């Protein structure tokens, strides 16, 4: 292989591997923090134990995810300097500030308050303790927003000029932070994150209920069922609501991209020639070298609608767009083709897995709605195993019931796959640019890092991440299987302890009850 090419390829693989892996945890961190906060708030407001148990259960799974998200995020911050030093040098003025703000505004908030939340169960008044998890949740959103505004600048560079020293220099921080690309991308990413969190809850709660159903009546754990059922419904509602928002934001983002990166969208559709009206491609097999599709199923006019909100306007094709870019930036039109099969299928997998999750959410909501699920003559206690009812009279037959629970359990994975493909599509669709129209990926890498070092680090990260994935999945499985904890909610509100030798106001500040076991300990 050409050595110069290998250099870029390996650096890109490393970025891809570390980023996709990191982004398995990010959406779950964003959504599970919010959902856990919601459950804890429900517990404080209603005092019902099922909310407390659900908070504890999802909180634990959230923490296992969070740990992985945090540690894999450290690599992300430093690999710009390691593998992409010419990029860092060129864009530091513009790309650095959102990153620094992310650390200062978001990371500190998340990591400080998560410590307070984990260890603060018996140290903080209830409401304050609950506020800590809300702070974490807000922190994850800030964190996501800053990094997405930095990424959006790479997709659509604004608010800068190239200075006399040949480096990009910031003109307008507000445009970098709040341009339409950043706003829409954040909206899309956050809603997709909640889609993932909803599916995570549906999957695990569905599994818990499925397992309870299999047990003989006497062995069933009423404690688990109430909380699992609440979680299932919460997950389903989250799936349905965020599913709609994902579609709206995705449509908006698509329109922005048709305008800003026509090549990305043309290759997402394998639309070789400019067409008016343009059809949406459902399935295509093509030949990149010859520039046409050999097999094609289409929905007429839909692509025009996605791009322009009407069914007849022209959508530029790959060949015309590439010719335009070549005329503007020099070189051959083919230099401007991204990897078309990857973008085409990435786009489809993203939409497909997202839509499927949303539809499962809708179906689940309908199948578990109170009137049917708990139709009066079938209504049993809050803590009994639900049967799936199709009507008031007929239960879903055993085969369908079994499969509906299996599908519920596997819902867990769909949005995660969709997210990964979404990012692969977004980042690869921008090629050959690292900063669209400004800097090519091939010119962004570190000149002094040898291919040997790159291969070594790619191997190290891939192996480490593989090992951690096995451990992480093992732990999640263990805790999911352990089910909703039987733990009783703390009866004593720490706020009620007055000053005195036992309270926080004790004379030596250490309190007289320092030997009391901690509510949570590593």
């Amino acid at each position: 292989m050409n050595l110069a090419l290998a250099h870029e390829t390996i650096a890109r693989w490393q970025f891809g591997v570390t980023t996709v892996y990191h982004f398995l945890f990010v959406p779950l961190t964003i959504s599970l923090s919010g959902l856990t906060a919601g459950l804890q708030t429900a517990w404080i407001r209603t005092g019902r134990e099922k909310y407390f148990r659900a908070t504890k259960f999802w909180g634990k799974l959230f923490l296992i995810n969070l740990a992985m998200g945090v540690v894999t995020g450290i690599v992300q911050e430093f690999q710009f300097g390691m593998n992409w030093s010419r990029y860092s040098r060129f864009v530091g003025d513009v790309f650095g500030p959102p990153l620094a703000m992310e650390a200062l505004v978001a990371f500190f908030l998340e990591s400080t308050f998560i410590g307070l939340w984990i260890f603060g169960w018996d140290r903080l008044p209830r409401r304050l303790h609950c506020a800590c998890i809300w702070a974490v949740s807000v922190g994850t959103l800030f964190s996501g927003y800053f990094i997405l505004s930095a990424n959006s600048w790479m997709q659509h560079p604004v608010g800068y000029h190239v200075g006399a020293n040949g480096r990009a220099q910031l003109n307008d921080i507000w445009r970098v932070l709040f341009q339409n690309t950043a706003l829409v991308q954040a909206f899309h990413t956050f809603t997709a994150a909640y889609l993932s969190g909803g599916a995570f809850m549906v999957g695990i709660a569905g599994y818990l209920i499925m397992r309870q159903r299999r047990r003989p009546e006497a062995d069933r754990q009423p404690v688990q069922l109430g909380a699992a059922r609440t979680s299932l419904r919460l997950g389903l509602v989250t799936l349905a609501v965020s599913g709609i928002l994902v579609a709206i934001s995705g449509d908006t983002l698509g329109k922005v991209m048709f305008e800003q990166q026509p090549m990305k969208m043309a290759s997402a559709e394998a639309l070789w020639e400019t067409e008016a009206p343009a059809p949406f491609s459902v399935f295509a097999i093509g030949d990149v070298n010859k520039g046409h599709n050999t097999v094609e199923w289409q929905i007429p006019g839909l692509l025009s609608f996605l791009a322009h909100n009407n069914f007849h306007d022209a959508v530029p094709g790959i060949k015309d767009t590439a010719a335009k870019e070549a005329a503007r930036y020099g070189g051959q039109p083919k230099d401007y083709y991204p990897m078309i099969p990857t973008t085409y299928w990435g786009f489809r997998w993203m939409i497909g897995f997202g839509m499927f999750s949303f539809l499962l959410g809708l179906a689940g909501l309908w199948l578990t709605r109170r009137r049917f699920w708990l139709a009066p003559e079938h209504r049993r206690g809050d803590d009994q195993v639900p049967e799936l009812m199709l009507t008031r009279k007929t239960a879903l037959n055993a085969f369908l019931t079994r499969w509906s629970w299996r599908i519920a359990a596997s819902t867990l994975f769909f949005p995660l796959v969709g997210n990964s493909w979404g990012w692969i599509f977004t980042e690869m669709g921008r090629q050959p640019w690292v900063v669209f129209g400004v800097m090519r990926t091939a010119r962004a890498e570190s000149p002094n890092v040898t291919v040997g070092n790159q291969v070594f680090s790619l191997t190290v990260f891939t192996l480490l991440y593989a090992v951690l994935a096995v451990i992480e999945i093992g732990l999640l499985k263990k805790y999911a299987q352990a089910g909703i904890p039987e733990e009783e909610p703390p009866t004593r509100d720490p706020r009620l302890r007055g000053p005195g030798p036992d309270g926080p106001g004790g004379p030596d500040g250490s309190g007289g009850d320092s030997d009391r076991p901690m509510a949570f300990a590593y």
Partner: protein
Amino acid sequence: MHLTDFWFLVIAILWIGYFFLEGFDFGVGILVGVVARDDRERRVLINTIGPVWDGNEVWLLTAGGATFAAFPVWYATLFSGFYLALLVILVCLIVRGVAFEFRGKRSGRRWQRNWEHALFVTSLLVAFLWGVAFANIVRGVKIDADEVYVGGFWDLINGYALLGGFTTLFLFTFHGAAFAALKTLGPIRARVRRAALLTGGVTAVLASAFLIWTQVDQGLGATPPGGLGGGWSLAALIIAVVALVSALAFARLQRDGWSFALSGVTVVAAVAMLFLSLYPDVLPSSLDPSWSLTVSNASSANYTLTVMTIVACVMTPVVLAYQAWTYWVFRRRIGVSAIPQ
């Protein structure tokens, strides 16, 4: 004061904050591997830093992000130049972070012992490698006219850098022992105190040697034009050594609070001294002084620095306030009886 100088100061403060805070949690991580006798004692030690280590680590991320924003050339040259060393540090930080979280998530002796070993080894390696890295930064590395590091991995391994590595390793262990003595109860407290005396003694020798070497090499004749002169770094050196010796004395007197405060002063003064002898360079070139990266040629433009200054001035007090509050909430000492079964 130019904004570039101000940002050099900010980054110095971020690193000082990082080493002050994560310094003791590296130290505690090392002590888990050497001082604790049984499972509960190990858990006591881990729990002294449990609620705060994650917040401490963010100081590093902030230092990294601030360097990217304020000194992109420094960021690019440093992290591509120290590629393999940084790789090892990143791997250690990853493994260390999950070790805290995952150790207690399964019972089973082997599982827990493996994570404790991981915690020990990674804390030790990172504590050592930061010293190596900073010694190389202060000493200067092979940077060519294009602001690119042209040395190899082995250029980073030299006597001065190794001494720097052992200095931070022992200094952080001492700092961690002083912290643990302040935060624990019972027999484990007596044991970490002894560890503090022992590592503190070694640190006194190593740190004096390293800082004096730095002062002779960088502080006196070798001050680059525009530098602050050797006086300031000498003052920091003296403060570091005096604080270290006093910290040891207080550790002997069993005054844990004073001992920890002074070990902290040692960390602050020692890191400050490194930055003082670095200024106005940010990464000196050992090939030709005129190729060195300095606060002026490595920095961002004025607008970026202004934006960042506003953000930093607004956010820093808020962050300091809630981090301080965390330490206040978890101010109690922990003994083995506080560890649930």
